[in-house]
């Protein structure tokens, strides 16, 4: 039952709610506002809610579209930055991981749920035990492994530990495949389909919802990834947006950081997830109910 009548407490509750939303959203507004401000205005106009003399120069210079001299004049350090490239790298990184991981984990989940083979429960139990292994435990050895394989500074090295599987995705998709009705499968067998045919033509199309859920969550986590890509993909050509932001911040002098440039770059790092939220918001919100354990 909701609070139906207009009352003082209801008004107060709404005020608190609105305040919460304002505090949630304001930093983003301030980020965009700063990104649109000419660097020189930061010292004169640093508290007005609107940019004094709006400009796109900060965006063009972090996207590598201006000359070094122009960038320097607009408050940059002159260091080479190309966020267009980093954004593309991040999109490729997320796409590869989300696509392949979802497919491979769906295949495994299906095998665990629907196929009969000796040792099934033991293998599954061992896999699930890996949920208990925290990432820090495998981080250092995985780095050395990737280094020994000569994959430092390659996209392959960056996606290697996550592109094939995460135990959670296998667990989650198996749960779903367990609930698929059996008779559809039996009809498919009568039509002459083998296990692969059933999986590809029947099981996958029937599980679009869970597949999108796990894919979306994987995209979000991959977009936020920082430490692993920092260790493996530090070089310019495979640098992700998050790593580039970290590098940009460290290149920025301590005395007078390039705030307008940093905020323009930050805005670019938020834009893709914002688009995702606008188009897939409902699904993302729903996916929380499933993936709260992650």
């Amino acid at each position, binding site marked *: 039952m*909701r*609070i139906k009548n207009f009352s003082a407490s209801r008004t107060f*509750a709404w005020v608190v*709610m609105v305040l919460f939303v304002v505090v*949630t959203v304001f*930093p983003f507004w*301030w980020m965009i506002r*700063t990104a649109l401000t000419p660097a020189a205005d930061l010292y004169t106009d*640093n*508290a007005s809610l609107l940019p004094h003399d709006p400009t796109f120069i900060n965006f063009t210079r972090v996207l590598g579209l201006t000359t070094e001299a122009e960038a320097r004049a607009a408050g940059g350090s002159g260091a080479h930055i190309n966020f267009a490239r980093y954004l593309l790298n991040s999109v490729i990184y997320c796409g590869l991981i989300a696509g392949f991981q979802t497919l*491979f*984990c769906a*295949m*495994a989940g299906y*095998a665990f749920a629907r*196929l*009969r083979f*000796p040792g099934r429960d033991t*293998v599954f139990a061992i*896999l699930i035990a*890996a949920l*208990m*292994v*925290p990432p*820090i*435990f*495998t981080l*250092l*050895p*995985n*780095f050395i492994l990737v280094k020994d394989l000569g994959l430092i500074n390659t996209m392959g090295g960056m996606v*290697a530990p996550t*592109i*094939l599987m995460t*135990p959670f995705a*296998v667990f989650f998709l198996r749960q779903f495949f367990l609930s698929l009705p059996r008779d559809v499968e039996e009809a498919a*067998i009568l039509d002459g389909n*083998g296990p692969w045919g059933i999986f590809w033509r029947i099981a996958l199309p029937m599980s679009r919802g869970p597949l999108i859920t796990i894919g979306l969550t994987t995209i*979000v986590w991959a977009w*936020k990834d*920082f*430490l692993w890509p*920092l260790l493996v993909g530090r070089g310019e050509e495979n640098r992700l947006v*998050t790593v580039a*932001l*970290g590098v940009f*911040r460290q290149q920025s002098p301590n005395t007078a950081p390039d705030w307008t440039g*940093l*905020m323009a770059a930050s805005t670019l*790092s*938020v834009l893709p997830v*914002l688009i*995702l*939220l606008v188009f897939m*918001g*409902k699904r*993302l*919100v729903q996916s*929380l109910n499933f993936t709260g*354990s992650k």
Partner: protein
Amino acid sequence: MSVTKRRDDRRAAWVFLAPVLVGFVVFYGYPAVRGVWYSVTDYTMLNTPSFVGADNYTELVKDGEFWHSLLVTVWYVVLNIGSQTILALGVAALMHRLTRSTVLRATMLLPWLVPNVTVGLLWTWLLDTNLGFVNHLLTSLDIGPIGFLTDDTWAMPSIAAINTWAYTGYTALLLYAGMLQVPQYLYESAAIDGANEWRMFRRITLPLLRPVLALVLVVSLIGSFQIFDTIAVTTFGGPVNATRVIYYFIYEQAFRYFHMGYAAAAAIFLALILGVLTAIQMRLLRASRSDLA
């Protein structure tokens, strides 16, 4: 089921499982064993590792910086989990009684979607001592300016506040989802008995939410113990070690000083803490499923 079907299944299963099994063995199983091995060697990434017994562990126990990093981490966890859970519970309760708006929920999710690195940068700018917006507000109220990220007493509470901002909406949505499971008739009969909102929250919502709340709490705890990204762009472990958390300690030992063996030992220490929390989480997961399904 026919014999041929079963044989088909067997062959297909290993094909279906191949990528996942390769991924598991190469990037989970093998590294886990390697991690334990490195922790008892003097590996620096340049030498051939040689066995040193428990040396790394005994050194770790005597290392003041290690204990400091652990202490700082716990301080962060307490601050962050405390504020985040209380706030999220309040917001979820308000939402539960006021609105089901999807737009509102999507907005609350926004800070969680953004990379921690971006969140760190955003707030470093907002909290800047000289030009930051927050200090501008404080100065106009005749308080401050405060060196939120440059003063060693303020640095950790500021980091905790930043991540509270980033994760409260997300946590609130998880709790809200739990509240939707509470049967409506309980509120209706309580209303007939003349119970007020606060009483309903304390006597109905909170007790029935306990399994979900416990789960969310443990999940956030596990996350908080692993704080790294935010610190890597805001304070870099400073000022005067005030924010050098254990993850940062391990990172520096491994990739700045190349004490791989030592870092591996510290990682095992952290892994033990996280392993216990994860075990609790998995138990709670089972319990909450059966309570709410």
